[in-house]
């Protein structure tokens, strides 16, 4: 009754007699879709048939593998199972969740969510699948049948060789610092230059070409312990001292000038 009044008397979109429409016997939900039971049960049957299909496909593949030693490529297994799953998911969303008969907004929410998922998965896969282009040693592992990736790739860099390095006793220190001191077959370490007395090469090796070459050895004033001091002296107005690499103390808390003047005081 109130519905008729609304339609007849105004275009407000609400009923002046019952402005909040709280009359419970209003014809609420009158336009809502009521599913057909035949449709629902046929969807259930289709879903169960698809489940049998995907399981059957899996078992057929297993049987072919054991009985005839036929190994299908992996992508057939994945594509078969996932496409059936997608069809099932669409059926559930469209008919059981009634997206097909519902407001488009709800479908839009879910599609936008799936778009975000696709971005998430897609960019992760692009990242993971293209790492070997930057670092060849990160190529995917060898699988039966092959992936076809890296067939014509350059040989793996020697430094990434799978032959394990001989075990060394670093005396408890970091292996990186140990290597910097002792060197390896290709590159001599700091100790080599000290023994040789090649100070220029020592400092070049020590500081490297960049500030990132500095490390905790420097903070411990390790170079002085190794017997070199000239590299640390600072030029002033009276004398100019050649030095290599970065200014000592540039990144440390101790001001080198103060430290030097204290030394002079002794």
């Amino acid at each position, binding site marked *: 009754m109130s519905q008729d009044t609304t339609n007849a008397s105004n275009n407000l*979109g*609400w009923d002046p007699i019952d402005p*909040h*429409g*709280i009359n*419970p*016997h*209003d*014809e*609420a*939900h*009158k*336009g809502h879709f*009521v*599913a057909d*039971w035949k449709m*629902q*049960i046929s*969807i*259930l049957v289709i*879903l*169960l048939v698809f*489940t049998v299909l*995907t*399981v059957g496909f*899996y*078992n057929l593949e297993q049987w072919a593998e054991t009985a005839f030693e036929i190994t299908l490529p992996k992508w057939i*297994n*994945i594509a078969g*199972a*996932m496409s*059936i*799953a997608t069809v*099932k*998911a669409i059926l*559930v*969303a469209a*008919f*059981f*969740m*009634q997206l097909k008969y519902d*407001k488009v*907004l*709800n479908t839009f*929410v*879910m599609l*936008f*969510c*799936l778009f*975000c*998922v696709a971005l*998430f*998965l897609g960019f*992760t*896969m692009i990242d*993971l*699948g293209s790492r070997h282009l930057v670092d060849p040693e990160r190529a*995917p*592992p060898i*699988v039966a049948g092959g992936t076809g990736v890296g067939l014509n790739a350059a040989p793996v860099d020697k430094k990434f060789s799978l032959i394990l390095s001989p075990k060394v006793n670093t005396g408890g220190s970091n292996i990186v610092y140990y290597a910097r001191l002792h060197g390896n077959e290709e590159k001599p370490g700091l100790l080599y230059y000290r023994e040789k007395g090649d100070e220029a090469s020592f400092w070049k090796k020590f500081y490297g070409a960049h500030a990132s070459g500095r490390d905790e050895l420097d903070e411990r004033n390790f170079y002085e312990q190794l017997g070199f001091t000239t590299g640390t002296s600072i030029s002033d107005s009276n004398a100019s001292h050649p030095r290599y690499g970065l200014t000592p103390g540039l990144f440390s808390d101790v001001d080198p000038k103060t430290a030097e003047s204290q030394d002079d005081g002794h």
Partner: protein
Amino acid sequence: MTMIDTDTSGVPARILKSPMHWRNAKHQSHWRSGDEEFDAAKFGMWLFLSTEVLLFAGIFCGYAVFRMLYPEAWANGSHSLDWRMGAANTAILLFSSWTAANAVRLCQLDKQFWFKINILITILCAIAFVAIKFTFEYGIKLPEGKAPGTFFSYPYATDPHEPLWWSLYYIGTGIHAFHVIIGAFLFAFVLWRAHRYQAYGPTQYTLVENSALYWHIVDLIWIFLFPLLYLIH
């Protein structure tokens, strides 16, 4: 449905007079109509369901990444799952999804008895799902040492990354089973209110609809988890 059945014979007066009964229930006064309230609640449910999908997307992404990195571990892990249990649980969830959709339809038609029966079947399916998962899957795998992460102690593992597979398996199926349990409690609440007050009917079925939507998304996620974990090797 244009007319609401006014025949209330056979319903006790105690229930009919209850303010919880669907004929007496009013929508909140800040909504213009019950329809708007229903649509907003449903839209909110869909927003929540999209966050659920995003939650599981993280697990699916982890699955894909580790599968690409450690295919041998993933193949071994997949082979040590029993596809029959997964298939049984799939059938159970699909069937319960159907009964949940049925419950919504019967509620819209005010067929209270069959509505409650369908809700009850859905709850029983949830219990069966969790029971199968715990007794025939977790209960067998865990004593063998096929446990997640650092708890992994299976002595015949051939790939060093197999603990990672089991971590992902238990996290994925565990969070899913947790959702199944939540869904069962939702339906239990619906069933209790339907039984006690006849709280749901043609003009008042928001919670039934939203619980069913939740149940369907749980089913939907299992539809993807099942082939990923059990069938792809």
